[in-house]
């Protein structure tokens, strides 16, 4: 038994080291455009875009297979930034765009299980075991990964409330 453990441990360590060096020395030069786009992405790998993580979405956008608007957490501003980088124009949804969605916890049913905290890629949720949890809206990326984790369905995604500082005039309606 001991021998088995030891040999496996050593084997693991050696192979790990070899792999690590291989990664360094044989690194494939990535597509710089893809990397550049990926650096703009939220990085939460939530999959809402339909691609396996942000890297996949970045590759698809760079290859012209996906629209810059495909990432809901990134929203309009990300779409515009990417479109500018690519030099293409994007069709943004009009005034009906609800803006970014963020998670909200119903405090009356949160049991303080901390599962959502572990799922959250941005540490946007505050709370400890057996305490009511809370989402810091400014930090929530809107990835929705916490929603399914909640055993009591206390979490929902909601649009960010519009404040006085953020409100602006809608575009005048087109007249006939």
């Amino acid at each position: 038994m001991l021998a088995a453990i030891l040999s496996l441990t050593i084997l693991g360590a050696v192979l790990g080291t070899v792999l690590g060096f291989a990664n360094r020395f044989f690194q494939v030069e990535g597509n710089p455009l893809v990397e550049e786009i990926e650096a703009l992405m939220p990085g939460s790998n939530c999959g809402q875009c339909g691609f396996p993580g942000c890297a996949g979405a970045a590759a698809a956008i760079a290859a012209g297979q996906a629209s810059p608007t495909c990432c809901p957490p990134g929203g309009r501003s990300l779409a515009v930034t990417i479109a500018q980088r690519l030099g293409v124009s994007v069709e943004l949804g009009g005034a009906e765009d609800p803006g970014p969605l963020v998670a909200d916890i119903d405090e009356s049913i949160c049991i303080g299980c901390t599962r959502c905290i572990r799922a959250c890629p941005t540490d946007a949720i505050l709370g400890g075991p057996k305490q009511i949890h809370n989402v810091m809206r400014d930090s929530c990326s809107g990835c929705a990964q916490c929603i399914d984790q909640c055993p009591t369905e206390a979490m929902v995604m909601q649009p960010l409330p519009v404040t006085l500082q953020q409100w602006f005039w809608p575009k005048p309606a087109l007249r006939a």
Partner: protein
Amino acid sequence: MGILDRFLRTARFSGGVHPDDHKRPAADAPLRVMPPPARLYVPLVQHIGSPARAIVAVGDHVRKGQRIGEPQGAVSAAIHAPTSGRVNAIGDIVAPHPSGLPVRGITIASDGRDEWCELETCDDPFALDPAEIGRRVARAGVVGLGGAAFPSAVKISGGLGARVDLLIINASECEPFLSCDDRLMRDRAAESVDGIAIMLHATGAREARIGIEDNKPEAIAAMRAAVAGHARIRVEVIPTRYPMGSEKHLILVLTGREVPAEGRPSDIGVVVHNVGTAVAVRNAVRFGRPLVSRMVTVNGACVRQPGNVEVPIGTLAGEVLAFCGGLRAEHGGPARLLLGGPMTGMQVPTLEVPVIKGTGGILVLDAAEVGEGEGDGSPCIRCGDCMRACPVGLLPLEIAARVRAGEVDAAARFGLADCIACGCCAYVCPSRIPLVQYFHHAKGELAARARGTQRNETIRTLTRAKAERVEREEREKAEALARRAAASLAAAAAAKQPAAVAEKAVEDASEEAGVCA
């Protein structure tokens, strides 16, 4: 002033319009002072900058002038109780804003006594250090009363970082329908000039020039008489043309100097204050009185007794109207409610909103004044009138076309950021295209994008931080695991115990790791 001089001044800025000013008869009606109503709704943000923080609790008794909101951050202003009474609520009130969104504010039920709190007076403001004047002005929560509501203290004592030689007092009041500055100068000329002298002392400027449009002869006469004893303060009569009151245009007309694009007046040694602000500064420095009331022009064909009223901050616009005899139903009744003037003011959905520090006017216009009808709904005929009217020299038709097509970046390249939203273009447009609304929309859209980019950046940083933390924790856990396994192995070897114990330990450890992974 010679005719030539006048000609030169008019020629100094191109564009602008001569709207029918509608100032009289409201401007000629005597000034009235409105007593505090039963309830006052005092928003915690009435200025440019961060909202103040409430420092009273529901149920507290407050006296007039007592500080109830503490400024937060570098650009902010203190809020004071406009009368004595009891704090009834701290929460959302409808903002005096076209969106009708709520704003945090303090509701005060007046006790009818209108009792001032202890005030720190000063007999000789000219003996005070300029920085001390700045502090007193800040303590009194004074903001620019011309409309922008920028906290004044910053602009009064050295906060601009640049030397100021010239203090310009904006008393042009170019906006149609409004006459509160006119009335203030007619009735309180000596106080205005005293305030200007205090500002002159605080800013360290060499001289002050008061710019008044030539459609206010009474105010000009009153101010000329009041400045008689002051060698360094001059009244300058300027031609009546909208938007004369725009800071950059006023400076150009009065000094011939141009403020650099994207620059501030202080870049050329000038600071501009509104004349109403001068009176507020005087009250703050001489009597320690915070800004708890202001002059408001109540005007429009639908108002029974138009005129100027001194209104406690927080009074509902509807109550001010009731004080002015209420509304007339003739001419088809009210067609538009406005806070501020018709060119730059805010159209509001209801009059159940409070008067705040920046509210210069409450207008209830009828259909004729709004001028709806003819030409409505036609497309742009590319007449170029808007271009000729624009005092900044922009191409409003081109900018609006880009915004309409959803290309706000293209609009920005046409100089959207320089638009001062004066409304001249929309005023002259024969097709009555809501040009200014396009520009407001586009500016808001650009600001929203900038916020979004900021947000995405924050989120990227947080995501990376969490990923790194998780990685580190896992590594540490793996290391701890390896250490523990090694330790139990050693123990097992030392005690010559059956391997089962060590095995058990490893199992335990991996179970833990499994849960945490």
